[in-house]
């Protein structure tokens, strides 16, 4: 069953253009120039109920614009979107009751109130029965470990504490689909790890459909089963994490260290880094047989160390971006 679908979804904005200089500014005052910016171009995909999907792309790729069209915040310029069978734009209020959204850079809780007050307000906004809300809040507090700061005004919390509260708050009405837009942006490594663990647990335990936009590959590796990669407003990759990982099999990173200086050139295969006794190679296994490369390296001299590693997911995605400048 399809939870989210986008068919040829596009969004363009009219942006005012103002060239530099006083003359241009005066001209712009009388006759402003506009440029049409295509933020999202013909994006199509489907997400099944219960899937946890990563929506990846570099800054400005159109990720956030897409998520905003799917949550009914922005109206598409063309194409159609459907979430839980509803049109996000036309049936915004009905849809809002069944989805949750966390925008990493924006707060849904009130800045000057405590999370406890914010949770009660959101519960009322989503028309949760007061009794049910009374049971739900302690459950979320325990699950997200936020008991210590429920009575502290949001503005006094650290970013990590705030994000925990924001994610917990987005679950107050038990949404069927959860949209997370850059949920770990600005967090330090430790807090990022905590938030990712929470998201992974959330997807596993609740079976909710989760749609995450991020440009942080770490978020995706820990939480998602499928990745859609968007670049310059269009989808460039849509495959399972397993398939995405398979791309790494064609590229190996070899590190080698010898007891004494040796000749490190292997014909066509040149080291990407070298010292007299050590070198690193990037081997494309479609061009060079791994076994032959390893045999050649072993035969060069007395080995002290040899490592063979797969390519990082981050590098794979970076290559995908670079391949479509």
């Amino acid at each position, binding site marked *: 069953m399809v939870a989210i679908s986008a068919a040829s979804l596009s969004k363009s904005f009219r942006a005012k253009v103002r060239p530099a200089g006083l003359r241009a500014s005066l001209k712009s005052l009388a006759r402003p120039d506009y440029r049409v910016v295509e933020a999202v171009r013909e994006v199509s995909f489907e997400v099944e109920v219960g899937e946890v999907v990563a929506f990846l792309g570099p800054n400005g790729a159109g990720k*956030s614009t897409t998520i905003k069209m799917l949550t009914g915040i922005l109206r598409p310029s063309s194409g159609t979107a459907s979430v839980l069978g509803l049109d996000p734009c036309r049936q915004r*209020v009905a849809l*809002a009751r069944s989805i949750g959204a966390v925008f990493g850079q924006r707060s849904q809780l009130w800045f000057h109130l405590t999370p406890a007050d914010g949770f009660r*307000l959101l519960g009322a*906004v*989503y028309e949760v029965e007061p009794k049910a809300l009374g049971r739900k809040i302690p459950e979320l507090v325990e699950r997200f470990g936020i008991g210590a700061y429920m009575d502290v005004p949001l503005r006094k919390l650290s970013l990590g504490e705030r994000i925990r509260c924001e994610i917990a708050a987005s679950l107050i009405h038990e949404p069927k689909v959860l949209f997370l837009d850059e949920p770990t942006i600005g967090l330090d490594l430790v807090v990022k790890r905590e938030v990712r663990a929470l998201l992974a647990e959330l997807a596993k335990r609740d079976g909710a459909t989760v749609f995450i936009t991020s440009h942080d590959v770490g978020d995706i590796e820990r939480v998602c089963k499928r990745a859609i990669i968007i670049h310059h407003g269009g989808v460039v990759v849509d495959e399972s994490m397993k398939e995405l990982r398979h791309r790494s099999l064609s590229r190996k990173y070899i590190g080698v260290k010898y007891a004494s200086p040796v000749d490190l050139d292997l014909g066509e295969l040149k080291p990407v880094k070298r010292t007299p006794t050590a070198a690193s190679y990037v081997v494309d296994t479609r061009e060079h047989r791994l076994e032959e490369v390893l045999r050649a390296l072993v035969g060069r001299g007395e080995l002290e160390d040899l490592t063979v590693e797969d390519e990082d997911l981050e590098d794979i995605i970076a290559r995908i971006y670079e391949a479509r400048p």
Partner: protein
Amino acid sequence: MSAPRLKLRKYAVAAIAAVQERLAYRGSFLGEGLTYALWVFVFSRIWRAAYAGRAELAGYGLSQMVWYFIAAELPSFAAGRPFWSLSDDMKSGQVAYLVSRPYDFVAYNFSQGAGQALASGLAYLAEGILLGLAFAGPLPVSSVLQAAAALASLALAASIQYLLQLAIAMTAFWAEENSAFYWIFSKLALVLGTLMPLEMLSETAQRVTWWTPFPALAYVPARILAAWPGAPAAARLLGFQLAWLALSFLACEAIYAAARSRFAVNGG
């Protein structure tokens, strides 16, 4: 709880949350309270000078005139200047994040504004009464009916003030720079009923003013408090305010509906 009650409850909870938020800032109460006191003090002195040798001006005695000013200023101080924050939200795109919730945008904002105005209004009311007793003399309220009408009128005035500011703020969807509209609105509100009663304007100016919402913002509550016009006239004045409350609300809904397609999110 029934579905209609659950639907309405969100607006009540939003208003209560706004009261809580307003109470979080004791410092701002102090600063704004001082401004209100200074404003009342300065104008009580100006009116004292204007009344030199006169028993009344446009039918108001000196004491009534000072009470008039205290009441006329109260709704705008209570409502505050939500235009600036609302307008910033529209320009920055922050407002777009508020629409993905199951509520009526105008009603939800109005509930918050009403909550804030209630918290501020009660504080200003207490301060205004003390200032009036100090600078104008006894409270010119002679019956429970007059007191109730004055309180209702003050609440209506603050509500209309908030809605008109919201409507002007929403022009940000079309005009990049809309502060001039607010500037014109606030200056007209000051001249048409706040600084002086409408009776001091020429007859033509009065006739024109009654076709605008400005008398509902300051003149009506101030007149009811300072120079009780009698129950039938007070009822007509309250009716005038209720009509403008409904009109302002509908205007906000219409502007919001028209603006909905213009939402953009900066950096999105």
